[in-house]
Protein backbone atom coordinates (compact mmCIF):
# COMPACT_ATOMS: atom_id res chain seq x y z
CA UNK A 1 0.00 0.00 0.00
CA UNK A 2 2.76 2.39 1.03
CA UNK A 3 4.76 1.61 -2.07
CA UNK A 4 1.73 2.07 -4.31
CA UNK A 5 0.93 5.48 -2.81
CA UNK A 6 4.58 6.44 -3.13
CA UNK A 7 4.64 5.50 -6.80
CA UNK A 8 1.37 7.38 -7.40
CA UNK A 9 2.95 10.49 -5.91
CA UNK A 10 5.96 9.98 -8.18
CA UNK A 11 3.55 9.90 -11.10
CA UNK A 12 1.83 13.06 -9.89
CA UNK A 13 5.09 15.04 -9.68
CA UNK A 14 6.49 13.84 -13.01
CA UNK A 15 3.13 14.19 -14.75
CA UNK A 16 2.71 17.73 -13.44
CA UNK A 17 6.01 18.79 -15.00
CA UNK A 18 5.19 17.05 -18.30
CA UNK A 19 1.81 18.75 -18.30
CA UNK A 20 3.23 22.24 -17.80
CA UNK A 21 5.39 21.75 -20.91
CA UNK A 22 2.80 19.85 -22.93
CA UNK A 23 0.25 22.65 -22.47
CA UNK A 24 2.49 25.08 -24.35
CA UNK A 25 2.92 22.64 -27.22
CA UNK A 26 -0.78 22.01 -27.38
CA UNK A 27 -1.92 25.64 -27.17
CA UNK A 28 0.45 26.83 -29.86
CA UNK A 29 -0.51 23.90 -32.02
CA UNK A 30 -4.19 24.52 -31.45
CA UNK A 31 -3.92 28.07 -32.60
CA UNK A 32 -1.47 28.04 -35.51
CA UNK A 33 -0.91 24.33 -36.16
CA UNK A 34 2.79 24.77 -35.38
CA UNK A 35 4.83 22.11 -33.61
CA UNK A 36 7.19 24.35 -31.71
CA UNK A 37 10.17 22.09 -31.12
CA UNK A 38 11.96 24.93 -29.35
CA UNK A 39 9.37 24.73 -26.59
CA UNK A 40 11.42 22.21 -24.61
CA UNK A 41 14.26 24.69 -24.66
CA UNK A 42 11.97 27.52 -23.54
CA UNK A 43 11.21 25.26 -20.57
CA UNK A 44 14.95 24.93 -19.96
CA UNK A 45 15.40 28.69 -20.35
CA UNK A 46 12.64 29.32 -17.82
CA UNK A 47 14.37 27.09 -15.30
CA UNK A 48 17.68 28.89 -15.82
CA UNK A 49 16.06 32.33 -15.56
CA UNK A 50 14.59 31.23 -12.24
CA UNK A 51 18.01 29.93 -11.18
CA UNK A 52 19.78 33.17 -12.12
CA UNK A 53 17.23 35.33 -10.33
CA UNK A 54 17.71 33.13 -7.28
CA UNK A 55 21.50 33.48 -7.50
CA UNK A 56 21.47 37.26 -8.05
CA UNK A 57 18.66 38.14 -5.67
CA UNK A 58 18.77 35.42 -3.05
CA UNK A 59 16.58 37.42 -0.66
CA UNK A 60 13.67 37.33 -3.10
CA UNK A 61 11.01 34.91 -1.80
CA UNK A 62 10.02 32.11 -4.13
CA UNK A 63 6.48 33.46 -4.64
CA UNK A 64 8.01 36.60 -6.19
CA UNK A 65 10.88 34.88 -7.98
CA UNK A 66 8.59 32.47 -9.77
CA UNK A 67 6.14 34.98 -11.31
CA UNK A 68 9.10 37.17 -12.28
CA UNK A 69 10.82 34.28 -14.05
CA UNK A 70 7.54 33.35 -15.71
CA UNK A 71 7.09 36.89 -17.05
CA UNK A 72 10.66 37.05 -18.36
CA UNK A 73 10.32 33.67 -20.03
CA UNK A 74 6.99 34.73 -21.52
CA UNK A 75 8.76 37.74 -23.05
CA UNK A 76 11.46 35.45 -24.43
CA UNK A 77 8.78 33.21 -25.93
CA UNK A 78 7.04 36.17 -27.56
CA UNK A 79 10.38 37.45 -28.87
CA UNK A 80 11.16 34.09 -30.47
CA UNK A 81 7.74 34.07 -32.10
CA UNK A 82 8.17 37.62 -33.39
CA UNK A 83 11.71 37.15 -34.74
CA UNK A 84 11.78 33.59 -35.96
CA UNK A 85 8.24 32.36 -36.60
CA UNK A 86 5.95 35.22 -37.62
CA UNK A 87 7.47 35.69 -41.04
CA UNK A 88 6.89 32.03 -41.75
CA UNK A 89 3.29 31.92 -40.58
CA UNK A 90 1.94 31.45 -44.08
CA UNK A 91 4.84 29.40 -45.36
CA UNK A 92 4.96 25.65 -45.66
CA UNK A 93 4.02 24.37 -42.21
CA UNK A 94 7.03 22.12 -42.03
CA UNK A 95 9.70 24.67 -42.83
CA UNK A 96 8.78 26.45 -39.61
CA UNK A 97 9.47 23.18 -37.83
CA UNK A 98 13.10 23.46 -38.93
CA UNK A 99 13.27 27.03 -37.68
CA UNK A 100 11.96 25.87 -34.31
CA UNK A 101 14.65 23.15 -34.21
CA UNK A 102 17.25 25.83 -35.01
CA UNK A 103 15.95 28.11 -32.27
CA UNK A 104 16.14 25.16 -29.86
CA UNK A 105 19.79 24.39 -30.65
CA UNK A 106 20.59 28.09 -30.42
CA UNK A 107 19.01 28.44 -26.96
CA UNK A 108 20.77 25.31 -25.66
CA UNK A 109 24.17 26.54 -26.70
CA UNK A 110 23.47 30.10 -25.62
CA UNK A 111 22.78 28.93 -22.08
CA UNK A 112 25.69 26.51 -22.18
CA UNK A 113 28.08 29.32 -23.19
CA UNK A 114 26.75 32.00 -20.87
CA UNK A 115 25.73 30.10 -17.72
CA UNK A 116 28.04 27.10 -18.10
CA UNK A 117 27.61 23.41 -18.79
CA UNK A 118 27.21 22.29 -15.18
CA UNK A 119 24.12 20.65 -13.79
CA UNK A 120 22.45 23.07 -11.39
CA UNK A 121 19.66 22.94 -8.87
CA UNK A 122 17.30 25.65 -7.73
CA UNK A 123 17.21 26.11 -4.00
CA UNK A 124 14.26 28.37 -3.72
CA UNK A 125 13.70 27.98 -0.03
CA UNK A 126 10.68 25.73 -0.46
CA UNK A 127 10.44 23.52 2.64
CA UNK A 128 12.08 20.16 2.04
CA UNK A 129 11.03 18.40 5.23
CA UNK A 130 9.01 15.23 5.00
CA UNK A 131 5.26 15.34 5.59
CA UNK A 132 5.14 13.75 9.03
CA UNK A 133 1.55 12.56 8.96
CA UNK A 134 1.98 10.53 5.77
CA UNK A 135 5.26 9.10 6.96
CA UNK A 136 3.73 8.05 10.25
CA UNK A 137 0.50 6.58 8.91
CA UNK A 138 1.45 5.06 5.57
CA UNK A 139 5.24 4.86 5.67
CA UNK A 140 5.23 7.16 2.64
CA UNK A 141 8.00 9.71 2.38
CA UNK A 142 6.70 12.89 0.79
CA UNK A 143 8.53 16.16 1.15
CA UNK A 144 6.69 19.43 1.34
CA UNK A 145 8.26 20.77 -1.85
CA UNK A 146 6.82 17.80 -3.72
CA UNK A 147 3.38 18.55 -2.34
CA UNK A 148 3.75 22.22 -3.25
CA UNK A 149 4.90 21.42 -6.78
CA UNK A 150 1.91 19.19 -7.37
CA UNK A 151 -0.55 21.67 -5.86
CA UNK A 152 0.80 24.75 -7.65
CA UNK A 153 0.92 22.90 -10.97
CA UNK A 154 -2.70 21.92 -10.63
CA UNK A 155 -3.66 25.47 -9.69
CA UNK A 156 -1.86 26.84 -12.75
CA UNK A 157 -3.68 24.36 -14.96
CA UNK A 158 -6.99 25.32 -13.39
CA UNK A 159 -6.27 29.03 -13.95
CA UNK A 160 -5.38 28.31 -17.56
CA UNK A 161 -8.62 26.40 -18.04
CA UNK A 162 -10.59 29.33 -16.62
CA UNK A 163 -8.75 31.84 -18.82
CA UNK A 164 -9.37 29.85 -21.97
CA UNK A 165 -12.97 28.92 -21.27
CA UNK A 166 -14.35 31.80 -19.22
CA UNK A 167 -12.72 35.03 -20.42
CA UNK A 168 -12.97 37.18 -23.53
CA UNK A 169 -9.30 36.58 -24.39
CA UNK A 170 -9.91 32.86 -24.10
CA UNK A 171 -12.90 33.12 -26.38
CA UNK A 172 -10.78 34.98 -28.93
CA UNK A 173 -8.10 32.29 -28.67
CA UNK A 174 -10.59 29.54 -29.23
CA UNK A 175 -12.07 31.45 -32.12
CA UNK A 176 -8.68 31.87 -33.77
CA UNK A 177 -7.99 28.19 -33.25
CA UNK A 178 -11.26 27.46 -34.98
CA UNK A 179 -10.71 29.70 -37.97
CA UNK A 180 -7.63 31.79 -38.47
CA UNK A 181 -8.91 33.51 -41.62
CA UNK A 182 -12.36 34.71 -40.65
CA UNK A 183 -11.87 35.67 -37.02
CA UNK A 184 -9.44 38.57 -37.71
CA UNK A 185 -12.20 40.09 -39.89
CA UNK A 186 -14.34 40.31 -36.75
CA UNK A 187 -11.88 42.74 -35.23
CA UNK A 188 -9.71 40.29 -33.33
CA UNK A 189 -6.03 41.22 -33.44
CA UNK A 190 -4.51 37.97 -34.69
CA UNK A 191 -0.90 38.88 -33.87
CA UNK A 192 -1.84 39.80 -30.34
CA UNK A 193 -3.71 36.56 -29.74
CA UNK A 194 -0.85 34.48 -31.11
CA UNK A 195 1.70 36.42 -29.06
CA UNK A 196 -0.53 35.91 -26.02
CA UNK A 197 -0.64 32.17 -26.65
CA UNK A 198 3.14 32.02 -26.85
CA UNK A 199 3.39 34.11 -23.67
CA UNK A 200 1.06 31.84 -21.70
CA UNK A 201 2.70 28.67 -23.00
CA UNK A 202 6.18 29.98 -22.19
CA UNK A 203 5.16 31.14 -18.72
CA UNK A 204 3.76 27.71 -17.90
CA UNK A 205 6.92 26.10 -19.24
CA UNK A 206 8.96 28.42 -17.01
CA UNK A 207 6.95 27.27 -14.00
CA UNK A 208 7.67 23.71 -15.07
CA UNK A 209 11.37 24.54 -15.46
CA UNK A 210 11.60 26.03 -11.99
CA UNK A 211 9.80 23.08 -10.43
CA UNK A 212 12.04 20.76 -12.36
CA UNK A 213 15.12 22.59 -11.13
CA UNK A 214 13.80 22.31 -7.60
CA UNK A 215 12.73 18.66 -7.70
CA UNK A 216 15.39 17.34 -10.07
CA UNK A 217 18.06 19.48 -11.79
CA UNK A 218 18.76 21.84 -14.66
CA UNK A 219 21.24 21.49 -17.48
CA UNK A 220 21.39 23.32 -20.81
CA UNK A 221 20.49 20.27 -22.87
CA UNK A 222 17.64 19.01 -20.73
CA UNK A 223 14.95 20.55 -22.92
CA UNK A 224 15.56 18.13 -25.78
CA UNK A 225 14.43 14.97 -24.04
CA UNK A 226 11.69 16.53 -21.95
CA UNK A 227 10.45 18.50 -24.92
CA UNK A 228 10.04 15.32 -26.94
CA UNK A 229 8.34 13.58 -24.02
CA UNK A 230 5.93 16.46 -23.55
CA UNK A 231 5.27 16.59 -27.28
CA UNK A 232 4.39 12.90 -27.18
CA UNK A 233 2.15 13.50 -24.18
CA UNK A 234 0.38 16.33 -25.98
CA UNK A 235 -0.24 14.19 -29.05
CA UNK A 236 -1.45 11.21 -27.04
CA UNK A 237 -3.95 13.42 -25.29
CA UNK A 238 -5.03 14.96 -28.56
CA UNK A 239 -2.88 17.86 -29.66
CA UNK A 240 -4.68 21.17 -29.53
CA UNK A 241 -6.73 20.16 -26.51
CA UNK A 242 -5.86 21.54 -23.10
CA UNK A 243 -7.54 18.76 -21.16
CA UNK A 244 -5.88 16.28 -23.50
CA UNK A 245 -2.39 17.65 -22.82
CA UNK A 246 -2.89 17.23 -19.09
CA UNK A 247 -4.38 13.78 -19.44
CA UNK A 248 -1.66 12.67 -21.86
CA UNK A 249 1.06 13.90 -19.50
CA UNK A 250 -0.20 11.97 -16.52
CA UNK A 251 -0.78 8.94 -18.68
CA UNK A 252 2.80 9.03 -20.00
CA UNK A 253 4.19 9.55 -16.50
CA UNK A 254 1.98 6.73 -15.23
CA UNK A 255 3.06 4.31 -17.93
CA UNK A 256 6.72 5.16 -17.34
CA UNK A 257 6.56 4.70 -13.59
CA UNK A 258 4.44 1.55 -13.85
CA UNK A 259 6.89 0.02 -16.33
CA UNK A 260 9.76 0.59 -13.92
CA UNK A 261 7.79 -0.52 -10.88
CA UNK A 262 6.14 -3.66 -12.19
CA UNK A 263 7.89 -4.69 -15.42
CA UNK A 264 11.49 -3.90 -16.24
CA UNK A 265 13.37 -0.65 -15.93
CA UNK A 266 15.67 -1.85 -18.76
CA UNK A 267 12.80 -1.70 -21.19
CA UNK A 268 11.22 1.48 -19.87
CA UNK A 269 11.32 3.41 -23.13
CA UNK A 270 10.51 0.38 -25.24
CA UNK A 271 7.44 -0.66 -23.26
CA UNK A 272 6.24 2.88 -22.63
CA UNK A 273 6.33 3.76 -26.31
CA UNK A 274 4.93 0.42 -27.36
CA UNK A 275 1.89 1.08 -25.18
CA UNK A 276 1.55 4.60 -26.51
CA UNK A 277 1.56 3.33 -30.08
CA UNK A 278 -1.16 0.83 -29.23
CA UNK A 279 -3.12 3.66 -27.67
CA UNK A 280 -2.86 5.75 -30.81
CA UNK A 281 -4.09 2.81 -32.85
CA UNK A 282 -7.22 2.75 -30.69
CA UNK A 283 -7.69 6.53 -30.66
CA UNK A 284 -6.03 7.72 -33.88
CA UNK A 285 -6.59 11.39 -32.98
CA UNK A 286 -5.46 11.18 -29.41
CA UNK A 287 -7.76 10.66 -26.47
CA UNK A 288 -9.36 14.11 -26.40
CA UNK A 289 -8.55 15.14 -29.96
CA UNK A 290 -11.22 15.78 -32.54
CA UNK A 291 -11.29 13.59 -35.62
CA UNK A 292 -11.14 15.43 -38.87
CA UNK A 293 -8.07 17.51 -38.06
CA UNK A 294 -6.45 16.19 -41.19
CA UNK A 295 -4.08 18.09 -43.33
CA UNK A 296 -5.87 19.16 -46.47
Amino acid at each position, binding site marked *: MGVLVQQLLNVAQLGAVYALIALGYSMV*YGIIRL*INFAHGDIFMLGGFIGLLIGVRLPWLPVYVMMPLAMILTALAGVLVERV*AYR*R*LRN*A*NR*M*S*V*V*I*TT*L*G*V*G*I*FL*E*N*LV*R*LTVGPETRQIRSGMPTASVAWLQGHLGVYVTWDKVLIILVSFSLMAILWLVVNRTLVGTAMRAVADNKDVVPLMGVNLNLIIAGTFAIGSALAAAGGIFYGQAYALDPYMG*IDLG*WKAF*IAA*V*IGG*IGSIEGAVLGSFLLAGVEVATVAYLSS*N*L*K*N*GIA*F*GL*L*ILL*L*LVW*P*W*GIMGKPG*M*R*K*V
Partner: protein
Amino acid sequence: MGRIKFPIVCAAALAVSLGLQLAVDGGVFPDVLNPYYLHLLTIIGMNIILVASLNLLNGYLGEFALGHAGFMAVGAYTAALLATRVLPAAADLPPVVGPFCILVATLGGAMAAAALVGWLVGLLTFKTVGDYLAIITLGFNMIIVNAIQNLDFVGGPRGFTGIPKNTSFFAVAVCAVVTLAVLRNLIQSSFGRVWVSIRENAIAAELMGVAVNRAKNQVFTLAAAFAGLAGGLWAQNQQFITPRSFDYIKTTEILVMLYLGGMASLSGSILGVVAYTVLMEVLRNLLSAFAPQLTEWRMLISPLILILIMLTRQYGLMGNREWAWLRKAP
Protein backbone atom coordinates in the same frame (compact mmCIF):
# COMPACT_ATOMS: atom_id res chain seq x y z
CA MET B 1 22.76 25.10 -73.91
CA GLY B 2 21.02 21.85 -74.50
CA ARG B 3 19.56 19.71 -71.77
CA ILE B 4 22.09 17.75 -69.79
CA LYS B 5 21.03 14.14 -69.62
CA PHE B 6 20.73 12.29 -66.31
CA PRO B 7 22.88 9.28 -67.31
CA ILE B 8 25.68 11.59 -68.40
CA VAL B 9 25.69 13.39 -65.03
CA CYS B 10 25.69 10.06 -63.20
CA ALA B 11 28.52 8.71 -65.29
CA ALA B 12 30.50 11.90 -64.78
CA ALA B 13 29.89 11.82 -61.00
CA LEU B 14 31.05 8.20 -60.82
CA ALA B 15 34.12 8.90 -62.92
CA VAL B 16 35.08 11.87 -60.73
CA SER B 17 34.48 9.77 -57.60
CA LEU B 18 36.68 6.97 -58.85
CA GLY B 19 39.34 9.51 -59.82
CA LEU B 20 39.22 11.11 -56.38
CA GLN B 21 39.39 7.75 -54.65
CA LEU B 22 42.41 6.66 -56.68
CA ALA B 23 44.12 10.05 -56.31
CA VAL B 24 43.75 10.08 -52.53
CA ASP B 25 44.78 6.42 -52.19
CA GLY B 26 47.78 7.07 -54.39
CA GLY B 27 48.70 10.23 -52.51
CA VAL B 28 48.47 12.62 -55.48
CA PHE B 29 48.42 16.31 -54.36
CA PRO B 30 48.25 15.29 -50.69
CA ASP B 31 47.72 18.90 -49.59
CA VAL B 32 44.52 19.43 -51.52
CA LEU B 33 43.15 15.93 -52.00
CA ASN B 34 43.51 14.53 -48.51
CA PRO B 35 41.52 11.79 -46.78
CA TYR B 36 39.67 14.40 -44.68
CA TYR B 37 37.84 15.78 -47.71
CA LEU B 38 37.19 12.25 -48.91
CA HIS B 39 35.77 11.47 -45.47
CA LEU B 40 33.45 14.48 -45.74
CA LEU B 41 32.39 13.43 -49.23
CA THR B 42 31.68 9.93 -47.91
CA ILE B 43 29.45 11.37 -45.20
CA ILE B 44 27.74 13.57 -47.77
CA GLY B 45 27.10 10.50 -49.93
CA MET B 46 25.55 8.53 -47.08
CA ASN B 47 23.48 11.50 -45.96
CA ILE B 48 22.16 12.00 -49.50
CA ILE B 49 20.81 8.45 -49.42
CA LEU B 50 19.20 9.10 -46.02
CA VAL B 51 17.70 12.46 -46.91
CA ALA B 52 16.47 11.42 -50.33
CA SER B 53 14.75 8.37 -48.85
CA LEU B 54 13.12 10.45 -46.11
CA ASN B 55 12.02 12.84 -48.84
CA LEU B 56 9.89 10.02 -50.24
CA LEU B 57 7.89 9.94 -47.01
CA ASN B 58 7.88 13.55 -45.95
CA GLY B 59 8.12 15.25 -49.30
CA TYR B 60 6.29 13.14 -51.85
CA LEU B 61 3.85 11.19 -49.70
CA GLY B 62 3.41 14.21 -47.44
CA GLU B 63 3.51 12.34 -44.14
CA PHE B 64 5.41 13.62 -41.14
CA ALA B 65 7.71 10.68 -40.35
CA LEU B 66 10.13 11.06 -37.46
CA GLY B 67 11.76 7.65 -37.21
CA HIS B 68 14.27 7.51 -40.01
CA ALA B 69 17.26 6.86 -37.77
CA GLY B 70 15.48 3.73 -36.55
CA PHE B 71 15.46 2.19 -40.04
CA MET B 72 19.07 3.23 -40.37
CA ALA B 73 19.87 1.40 -37.12
CA VAL B 74 18.26 -1.80 -38.38
CA GLY B 75 20.37 -1.64 -41.54
CA ALA B 76 23.55 -0.79 -39.67
CA TYR B 77 23.23 -3.61 -37.14
CA THR B 78 22.20 -6.15 -39.78
CA ALA B 79 25.18 -5.28 -41.93
CA ALA B 80 27.50 -5.37 -38.93
CA LEU B 81 26.22 -8.80 -37.88
CA LEU B 82 26.51 -10.18 -41.40
CA ALA B 83 30.02 -8.82 -41.84
CA THR B 84 31.39 -10.08 -38.54
CA ARG B 85 29.44 -13.24 -37.69
CA VAL B 86 28.05 -14.72 -40.89
CA LEU B 87 30.18 -13.92 -43.89
CA PRO B 88 33.85 -14.87 -44.26
CA ALA B 89 36.47 -12.17 -43.83
CA ALA B 90 37.47 -10.32 -46.98
CA ALA B 91 41.07 -11.43 -46.50
CA ASP B 92 40.08 -15.09 -47.02
CA LEU B 93 38.52 -14.36 -50.40
CA PRO B 94 40.02 -13.56 -53.78
CA PRO B 95 40.89 -9.85 -54.15
CA VAL B 96 38.42 -7.34 -55.66
CA VAL B 97 35.68 -9.92 -56.28
CA GLY B 98 35.63 -11.11 -52.65
CA PRO B 99 35.23 -7.70 -50.97
CA PHE B 100 32.71 -6.71 -53.63
CA CYS B 101 30.57 -9.78 -52.92
CA ILE B 102 30.75 -9.15 -49.17
CA LEU B 103 29.72 -5.54 -49.60
CA VAL B 104 26.81 -6.48 -51.84
CA ALA B 105 25.70 -9.21 -49.45
CA THR B 106 25.87 -7.03 -46.32
CA LEU B 107 24.11 -4.10 -47.98
CA GLY B 108 21.50 -6.40 -49.48
CA GLY B 109 20.86 -7.87 -46.05
CA ALA B 110 20.69 -4.42 -44.50
CA MET B 111 18.17 -3.24 -47.08
CA ALA B 112 16.04 -6.36 -46.73
CA ALA B 113 15.92 -6.18 -42.93
CA ALA B 114 15.13 -2.47 -42.90
CA ALA B 115 12.51 -2.93 -45.62
CA LEU B 116 10.79 -5.62 -43.56
CA VAL B 117 10.70 -3.36 -40.51
CA GLY B 118 9.54 -0.47 -42.69
CA TRP B 119 6.74 -2.61 -44.05
CA LEU B 120 5.62 -3.48 -40.50
CA VAL B 121 5.73 0.15 -39.40
CA GLY B 122 3.83 1.04 -42.54
CA LEU B 123 1.04 -1.34 -41.49
CA LEU B 124 0.80 0.46 -38.17
CA THR B 125 0.34 3.82 -39.77
CA PHE B 126 -2.78 3.14 -41.83
CA LYS B 127 -5.07 4.46 -39.17
CA THR B 128 -3.13 7.61 -38.36
CA VAL B 129 -2.18 10.70 -40.27
CA GLY B 130 -0.21 13.88 -39.83
CA ASP B 131 1.26 14.61 -36.46
CA TYR B 132 -0.15 11.42 -34.95
CA LEU B 133 1.83 9.42 -37.47
CA ALA B 134 4.87 11.37 -36.32
CA ILE B 135 4.48 9.85 -32.86
CA ILE B 136 4.16 6.31 -34.19
CA THR B 137 7.39 6.64 -36.14
CA LEU B 138 9.16 8.48 -33.32
CA GLY B 139 8.01 5.85 -30.83
CA PHE B 140 9.20 3.10 -33.13
CA ASN B 141 12.62 4.80 -33.32
CA MET B 142 12.85 4.89 -29.51
CA ILE B 143 11.77 1.25 -29.24
CA ILE B 144 14.44 0.13 -31.72
CA VAL B 145 17.18 2.01 -29.85
CA ASN B 146 15.94 0.70 -26.50
CA ALA B 147 15.82 -2.87 -27.85
CA ILE B 148 19.38 -2.73 -29.20
CA GLN B 149 20.56 -1.41 -25.84
CA ASN B 150 19.24 -4.57 -24.27
CA LEU B 151 20.77 -7.00 -26.78
CA ASP B 152 24.09 -8.03 -25.36
CA PHE B 153 25.20 -10.06 -28.38
CA VAL B 154 25.46 -6.86 -30.42
CA GLY B 155 27.24 -5.06 -27.61
CA GLY B 156 24.26 -3.37 -25.94
CA PRO B 157 25.06 0.20 -24.96
CA ARG B 158 28.78 -0.53 -25.38
CA GLY B 159 28.27 -0.52 -29.10
CA PHE B 160 29.34 -2.89 -31.83
CA THR B 161 33.11 -2.88 -32.29
CA GLY B 162 35.38 -4.55 -34.77
CA ILE B 163 33.31 -4.11 -37.93
CA PRO B 164 35.60 -4.47 -40.96
CA LYS B 165 35.97 -1.46 -43.23
CA ASN B 166 34.33 -2.90 -46.29
CA THR B 167 33.34 0.40 -47.87
CA SER B 168 35.20 3.15 -49.60
CA PHE B 169 34.19 6.56 -50.84
CA PHE B 170 33.71 5.13 -54.30
CA ALA B 171 31.36 2.43 -53.01
CA VAL B 172 29.30 5.07 -51.22
CA ALA B 173 29.22 7.20 -54.36
CA VAL B 174 27.94 4.25 -56.40
CA CYS B 175 25.22 3.58 -53.82
CA ALA B 176 24.20 7.25 -53.75
CA VAL B 177 23.97 7.42 -57.54
CA VAL B 178 21.97 4.18 -57.70
CA THR B 179 19.62 5.47 -54.99
CA LEU B 180 19.06 8.73 -56.81
CA ALA B 181 18.48 6.93 -60.10
CA VAL B 182 15.95 4.52 -58.60
CA LEU B 183 14.11 7.25 -56.70
CA ARG B 184 14.06 9.62 -59.67
CA ASN B 185 12.59 7.03 -61.94
CA LEU B 186 10.00 5.93 -59.39
CA ILE B 187 8.98 9.46 -58.50
CA GLN B 188 8.50 10.42 -62.09
CA SER B 189 6.58 7.24 -62.91
CA SER B 190 2.94 6.47 -62.22
CA PHE B 191 3.96 5.34 -58.71
CA GLY B 192 5.24 8.79 -57.88
CA ARG B 193 2.10 10.43 -59.21
CA VAL B 194 0.02 8.21 -56.98
CA TRP B 195 2.08 9.27 -53.93
CA VAL B 196 1.73 12.94 -54.74
CA SER B 197 -2.01 12.52 -55.27
CA ILE B 198 -2.26 11.07 -51.75
CA ARG B 199 -0.29 14.02 -50.42
CA GLU B 200 -2.56 16.53 -52.14
CA ASN B 201 -5.83 14.88 -51.22
CA ALA B 202 -6.02 11.34 -49.94
CA ILE B 203 -9.83 11.16 -50.15
CA ALA B 204 -9.94 12.33 -53.74
CA ALA B 205 -7.16 9.90 -54.60
CA GLU B 206 -9.13 7.07 -53.07
CA LEU B 207 -12.21 8.05 -55.06
CA MET B 208 -10.10 7.93 -58.20
CA GLY B 209 -9.32 4.30 -57.46
CA VAL B 210 -5.95 4.66 -55.75
CA ALA B 211 -5.26 1.98 -53.16
CA VAL B 212 -4.08 4.48 -50.56
CA ASN B 213 -2.93 2.03 -47.90
CA ARG B 214 -1.00 -0.09 -50.34
CA ALA B 215 0.73 2.95 -51.78
CA LYS B 216 1.62 4.25 -48.31
CA ASN B 217 3.11 0.90 -47.40
CA GLN B 218 5.13 0.87 -50.61
CA VAL B 219 6.67 4.19 -49.70
CA PHE B 220 7.43 3.14 -46.12
CA THR B 221 9.08 -0.07 -47.29
CA LEU B 222 11.08 1.71 -49.96
CA ALA B 223 12.20 4.59 -47.73
CA ALA B 224 13.19 2.17 -44.98
CA ALA B 225 15.15 0.01 -47.41
CA PHE B 226 17.26 2.94 -48.53
CA ALA B 227 17.71 4.16 -44.96
CA GLY B 228 18.92 0.63 -44.23
CA LEU B 229 21.35 0.89 -47.14
CA ALA B 230 22.75 4.09 -45.65
CA GLY B 231 22.96 2.40 -42.25
CA GLY B 232 24.83 -0.57 -43.73
CA LEU B 233 27.33 1.77 -45.36
CA TRP B 234 27.58 3.81 -42.17
CA ALA B 235 28.44 0.77 -40.02
CA GLN B 236 31.10 -0.47 -42.40
CA ASN B 237 32.58 2.96 -42.87
CA GLN B 238 32.77 4.00 -39.23
CA GLN B 239 33.62 0.43 -38.09
CA PHE B 240 31.87 1.11 -34.80
CA ILE B 241 28.22 1.77 -34.06
CA THR B 242 26.34 2.44 -30.87
CA PRO B 243 22.56 2.48 -30.36
CA ARG B 244 22.53 6.09 -29.25
CA SER B 245 23.94 7.24 -32.58
CA PHE B 246 20.55 6.35 -34.02
CA ASP B 247 18.22 8.15 -31.63
CA TYR B 248 15.93 11.06 -32.44
CA ILE B 249 18.86 13.47 -32.52
CA LYS B 250 20.05 11.73 -35.68
CA THR B 251 16.50 11.81 -37.02
CA THR B 252 16.38 15.56 -36.38
CA GLU B 253 19.64 16.05 -38.23
CA ILE B 254 18.25 14.22 -41.27
CA LEU B 255 15.08 16.32 -41.06
CA VAL B 256 17.05 19.56 -40.91
CA MET B 257 19.01 18.66 -44.04
CA LEU B 258 15.80 17.65 -45.80
CA TYR B 259 13.91 20.86 -45.08
CA LEU B 260 16.99 23.00 -45.62
CA GLY B 261 17.20 21.67 -49.15
CA GLY B 262 13.49 21.73 -49.85
CA MET B 263 10.78 19.10 -49.87
CA ALA B 264 9.64 16.99 -52.80
CA SER B 265 12.82 17.77 -54.68
CA LEU B 266 15.74 15.39 -55.11
CA SER B 267 17.93 18.34 -56.06
CA GLY B 268 16.97 19.87 -52.73
CA SER B 269 18.01 16.70 -50.91
CA ILE B 270 21.43 16.82 -52.53
CA LEU B 271 21.88 20.54 -51.98
CA GLY B 272 20.61 20.43 -48.38
CA VAL B 273 23.07 17.71 -47.42
CA VAL B 274 26.01 19.40 -49.12
CA ALA B 275 25.19 22.82 -47.69
CA TYR B 276 24.68 21.53 -44.15
CA THR B 277 27.76 19.29 -44.01
CA VAL B 278 30.06 21.80 -45.65
CA LEU B 279 28.75 24.67 -43.54
CA MET B 280 29.50 22.79 -40.31
CA GLU B 281 33.01 21.93 -41.48
CA VAL B 282 33.75 25.42 -42.80
CA LEU B 283 32.78 26.80 -39.41
CA ARG B 284 34.99 24.23 -37.71
CA ASN B 285 37.96 25.10 -39.89
CA LEU B 286 37.50 28.86 -39.72
CA LEU B 287 37.19 28.83 -35.95
CA SER B 288 40.07 26.42 -35.60
CA ALA B 289 42.30 28.57 -37.80
CA PHE B 290 41.40 32.04 -36.56
CA ALA B 291 39.79 31.72 -33.15
CA PRO B 292 40.65 28.39 -31.51
CA GLN B 293 39.33 29.61 -28.15
CA LEU B 294 35.85 29.92 -29.68
CA THR B 295 35.59 26.34 -30.95
CA GLU B 296 32.38 25.67 -29.04
CA TRP B 297 30.67 28.73 -30.54
CA ARG B 298 30.21 26.69 -33.70
CA MET B 299 27.03 25.20 -32.29
CA LEU B 300 25.71 28.69 -31.58
CA ILE B 301 26.52 30.12 -35.00
CA SER B 302 25.27 27.21 -37.10
CA PRO B 303 21.66 27.29 -35.87
CA LEU B 304 21.58 31.06 -36.46
CA ILE B 305 22.63 30.54 -40.06
CA LEU B 306 20.01 27.82 -40.39
CA ILE B 307 17.28 30.13 -39.08
CA LEU B 308 18.42 32.91 -41.38
CA ILE B 309 18.28 30.63 -44.41
CA MET B 310 14.81 29.42 -43.50
CA LEU B 311 13.58 32.98 -42.94
CA THR B 312 14.83 34.15 -46.32
CA ARG B 313 13.98 30.99 -48.25
CA GLN B 314 10.87 29.60 -46.66
CA TYR B 315 10.66 26.56 -48.91
CA GLY B 316 14.27 25.57 -48.43
CA LEU B 317 17.13 26.21 -50.79
CA MET B 318 15.48 24.53 -53.78
CA GLY B 319 11.79 24.70 -52.93
CA ASN B 320 10.20 21.88 -54.89
CA ARG B 321 12.05 22.66 -58.09
CA GLU B 322 14.45 20.21 -59.70
CA TRP B 323 17.66 20.76 -61.55
CA ALA B 324 17.14 20.20 -65.26
CA TRP B 325 19.24 17.06 -65.36
CA LEU B 326 17.14 15.41 -62.67
CA ARG B 327 13.86 16.06 -64.53
CA LYS B 328 12.57 13.62 -67.04
CA ALA B 329 11.84 14.93 -70.50
CA PRO B 330 8.14 15.87 -70.69
